[in-house]
């Protein structure tokens, strides 16, 4: 049974597949079938082997299952059969309806061909009629066209015959444009037939045109005509084939010549500025030079505008001219600021130039005049800034040197003080002025300056930085501390008075403490910011660095002052120790005169210092009775000293050395070389200390006999009182004076000090003598 069912199944499936390829497959049928068959090896597949299937089923299943399977399969086959029947029926139905439709179509198409033939016939008849109309009208139209052409020709001939008269009329009414138009219109005909039929006519019109050309040329050259008119004239001339280039060249030359008149000569510049101001006040009542200049430039630019319009191809030349004028302006400006110029004047000129540039720029925007002038202006402004600073430096150095003419006065009078005050003022006032000037520049709002503001700020900052640096260098050169690269200059600066070095030192302090902070403030107030470009390497103005520089400079200068002063005294001391033969010295009779010179030098130092430097905060109390108390102290110390001398004399030298060492230990190494401060006392003390140390060194280089030692002892003893008077650090002076005597005793073959009474007596004699000397000199 199963074998029977299998081919049946096969057949139904093929049928169904065939149908479903024609129509959309009925999902209920296909899915139902497949779901049933899916449980077995696929019956639906093409490679289905019925025998195998059967074998498998028989082997696998028992009888009952097979029976069941049989029943099921039979049911399925039945199902499929009915499905197939339904499908066939349906197909048939559809086929019948299709046949009906075809039948209907056939009956409808029948009879259409007759209508079509009718239509074609009608169209043919329309075409033949229109052809008829065309041929009947052709002749008439031809005739009309011919007539029209003749009429045109006649009109042209008429025009040419009328041309001279027309031209004359145009000349009369100055309608040159029309005239030229007419003439150029008639030109081709005249060219062809001019020699034959229209000879008369051509001559007449050429004459007229000649007049027109002449008129046009005069019009072109006359400045009174409007630009429009002149431009028109030029255009007309060009249309008339008149050679315009030579005309252009002539005109431009004229323009070029006028450039000279436009120059702002350095000599006139200031005048120009003055008048510029005054003319503003008087409301241009007075035609000042500035006004004239402005008009001239206006005229120039107008002319340029005209030429530009007249000769569009001459732009290059005009550009060149305009640029030449601008650069000339700035060159003159540079010349002008070589002299001293205030910022106001500078601005005045600048404004004029800028106005000129703006005027020209309006006419020739392509010439990039504003760029050009911006560049030039930058350069000029930079120069101006630099020059202002160098002027300031010159001012300061002039103030310093102005007073140096009479050197003797310096010591006596208050000249140094005056110089210091004057130079201080010069620095302060100078920088203040500079700020004011630059602020003016900064406030200037004309176009070019707005762009340069950032640059200006940068320059001013850098300017100050450089200014102070060079001022520092200048101070050092002035002081002769560093010889300038120029050898001769270095020599001349050597002669500078020592006092002036002191002034420079104090001035450096002043700059460090007062001027630079002030400038820093000013810069922060009005010159801060600036363009980032200028600050690539940090801000240009570095007050900290400048302060350091001037601090160093002030110390260096002060040291230099002390050096030069001590050098001067050293000369005295050296001479004192080089000249006599100390080993054969005679008994001391009086205090040696080198002491006077030494004290005199110190006095000079004191006077100079007093004029320049402030008093120290620490001031030792003045002795009420300097003379009396001083002698007692000195004699006491002297006795002490001679005691020591005597003792050391008797003992062995080893112990003497030991003793001096011990003494030093107890005295504690007196700080001889302390830092110099900017006070009167400190400077004088330092000078004295250095000189006493020198004295000691000189003594150590000599060998003395008894009298030589006594002479030294006497001189030193005499020095004690006046030195203590002038010096703040008494302990150090005492120490140093003692050191000198110790040094002398060490270098002495036979140490026997003078008796205190004799010492006193000699000193008193010296005092009396100098007093008498003073009394003698003072009245005279």
């Amino acid at each position: 049974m199963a074998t029977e069912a299998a081919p049946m199944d096969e057949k139904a499936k093929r049928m169904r597949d065939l149908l479903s390829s024609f129509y959309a497959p009925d999902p209920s049928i296909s899915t139902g079938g497949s779901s049933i068959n899916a449980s077995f090896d696929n019956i639906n597949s093409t490679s289905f082997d019925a025998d195998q299937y059967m074998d498998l089923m028989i082997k696998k299943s028992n009888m009952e299952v097979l029976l069941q399977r049989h029943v099921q399969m039979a049911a399925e086959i039945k199902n499929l059969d009915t499905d197939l029947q339904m499908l066939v029926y349906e197909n048939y139905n559809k086929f019948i309806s299709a046949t009906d439709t075809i039948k209907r179509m056939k009956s409808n198409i029948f009879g259409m061909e007759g209508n079509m033939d009718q239509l074609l016939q009608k169209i043919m008849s329309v075409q033949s009629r229109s052809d008829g109309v065309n041929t009947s009208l052709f002749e008439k139209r031809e005739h009309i066209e011919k007539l029209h052409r003749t009429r045109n020709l006649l009109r042209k001939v008429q025009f040419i015959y009328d041309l001279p008269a027309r031209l004359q009329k145009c000349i009369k009414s100055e309608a040159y444009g029309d005239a030229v138009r007419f003439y150029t219109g008639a030109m081709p005909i005249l060219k062809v037939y001019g020699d034959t039929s229209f000879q008369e006519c051509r001559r007449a019109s050429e004459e007229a045109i000649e007049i027109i050309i002449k008129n046009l040329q005069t019009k072109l050259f006359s400045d009174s005509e409007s630009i429009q008119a002149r431009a028109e004239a030029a255009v007309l001339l060009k249309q008339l084939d008149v050679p315009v280039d030579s005309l252009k060249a002539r005109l431009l030359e004229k323009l070029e010549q006028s450039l000279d008149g436009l120059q702002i000569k350095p000599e006139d510049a200031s005048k120009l500025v003055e008048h510029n101001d005054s003319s503003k006040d008087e409301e241009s009542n007075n035609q000042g030079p500035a006004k004239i200049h402005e008009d001239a430039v206006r005229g120039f630019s107008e002319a340029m505008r005209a030429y530009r319009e007249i000769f569009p191809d001459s732009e290059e030349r005009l550009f060149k001219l305009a640029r030449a004028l601008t650069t000339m302006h700035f060159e003159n400006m540079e010349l002008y600021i070589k002299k001293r110029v205030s910022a106001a004047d500078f601005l005045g000129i600048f404004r004029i130039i800028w106005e000129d540039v703006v005027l020209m720029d309006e006419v020739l925007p392509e010439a990039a005049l504003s760029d050009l002038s911006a560049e030039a202006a930058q350069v000029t402004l930079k120069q101006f800034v630099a020059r202002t600073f160098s002027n300031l430096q010159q001012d300061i150095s002039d103030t310093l040197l102005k007073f140096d003419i009479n050197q003797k006065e310096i010591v006596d009078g208050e000249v140094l003080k005056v110089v210091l005050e004057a130079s201080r003022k010069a620095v302060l006032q100078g920088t203040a002025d500079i700020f004011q000037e630059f602020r003016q520049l900064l406030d200037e709002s004309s176009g070019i300056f707005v762009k340069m503001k950032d640059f200006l700020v940068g320059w001013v900052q850098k300017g100050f930085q450089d200014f102070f640096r060079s001022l520092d260098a200048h101070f050092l050169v002035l002081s002769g501390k560093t010889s300038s690269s120029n050898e001769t200059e270095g020599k001349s600066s050597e002669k500078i008075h020592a006092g002036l070095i002191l002034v420079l030192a104090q001035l450096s302090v002043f700059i460090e403490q007062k001027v630079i902070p002030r400038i820093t403030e000013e810069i922060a107030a009005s010159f801060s910011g600036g363009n980032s470009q200028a600050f690539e390497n940090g801000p240009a103005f570095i007050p900290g660095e400048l302060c350091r520089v001037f601090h160093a400079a002030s110390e260096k200068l002060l040291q230099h002052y002390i050096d030069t002063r001590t050098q001067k005294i050293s000369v005295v001391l050296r001479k004192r120790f080089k000249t006599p033969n100390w080993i054969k010295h005679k008994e001391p009779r009086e205090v040696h005169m080198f002491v006077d010179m030494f004290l005199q030098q110190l006095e000079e130092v004191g006077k100079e210092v007093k004029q320049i430097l402030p008093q120290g905060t620490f001031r030792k109390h003045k002795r009420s009775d300097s003379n009396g108390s001083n002698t007692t102290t000195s004699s006491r110390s002297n006795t002490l000293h001679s005691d020591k001398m005597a003792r050391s004399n008797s003992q062995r030298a080893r112990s003497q050395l030991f003793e001096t060492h011990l003494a030093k230990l107890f005295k504690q190494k007196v700080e001889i070389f302390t830092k110099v401060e900017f006070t009167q006392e400190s400077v004088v003390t330092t000078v004295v200390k250095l000189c006493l140390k020198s004295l000691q060194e000189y003594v150590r280089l000599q060998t003395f006999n008894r009298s030589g030692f006594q002479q030294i002892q006497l001189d030193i003893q005499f020095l004690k009182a006046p030195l203590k008077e002038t010096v703040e650090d008494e302990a150090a002076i005492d120490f140093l004076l003692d050191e000198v005597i110790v040094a002398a005793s060490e270098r002495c073959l036979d140490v026997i000090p003078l008796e205190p009474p004799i010492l006193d007596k000699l000193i008193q004699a010296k005092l009396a003598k100098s007093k008498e000397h003073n009394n003698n000199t003072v009245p005279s």
Partner: protein
Amino acid sequence: MQGGSSGIGYGLKYQARCISDVKADTDYTSFLTGTLSLKEENEVHLLRLSSGGTELVCEGLFSHPNEIWDLASCPFDQRIFSTVFSTGESFGAAIWQIPELYGQLSSPQLERVASLDAHVGKINCVLWWPSGRCDKLISMDEQNIFLWNLDCSKKSAEVQSKDSAGMLHSLSGGAWSPHDVNAVAATGESSVQFWDLRTMKKVNSIERAHVRGVDYSPKREHTFITAEDESGIHIWDLRKAKVPVQSLPGHTHWTWSVKCNPEYDGLILSAGTDSAVNLWYASSSSTDEKASESPVASTRQRVNLLLNSYTDYEDSVYGLAWSSREPWVFASLSYDGRVVIESVKPFLPRLK
């Protein structure tokens, strides 16, 4: 300024001015120094730095008849040296030989090789040629320069030639060029003069007053250094002797002596009467660039030039000597007779 007492000290009995490196001693770092005492028995001390470099040992002690103003060790024989001495009234100069076996003698006597007794005035110094064996000697007094022929074996010294610098110049000291056996510099009252020994004529001069100490740079032929009373130290190029190449601030008081390091170019030592020894570094490159530098940069550099200041002295320092055997060691001598040996090794790396 650190004043740390890193140095090795040694005390002389009396005051002293001069110390000299014993260049010929290749086994030890030794120095010779002599005392300056007007009234006592003067001594010459031969000092040796122990091998560890921690101790200064007195290797020999010799009595010297007079106070010693100048002392120089012979550069090719460690036992020979010269002194300039004074009796107070008169000056003399002599060449001495340290006796052999001095260690075994209880009180060894110096052997006088020769007396340089042609001088009339105050003798300043005796110079040996620093660069090697040379049987010539130079001695200077205030007016004259003498060139001697020294024959150690014959124990004699003869004047080969002499020249007078003139009354006005008043010579005070000098230096013999290590580069040229015929070139000698002498310091005078108002200038430094350069002599050619072949012709005994002045060939050059630096117009500079009050020069205390001079030295030739052993490494650079034309470099010359002067120390002045008030105006510090100057470095010169002898080919352009008008303007100094470089200036160092020197000392608070006089700069007494300057010495170039024998090995490290640009390392300069100066001693001053402000009881200090300063160690400077003046590089040659900085001298070339100096002109183009901004003032700020140069001041900054000037600060850097001073490598160290040794301030551990009680008195003026007059004697100063580099060791040629250990060129980073120097000996300094202050007037109170204290010898201090210091090493500059900590500063050498900074030179680069």
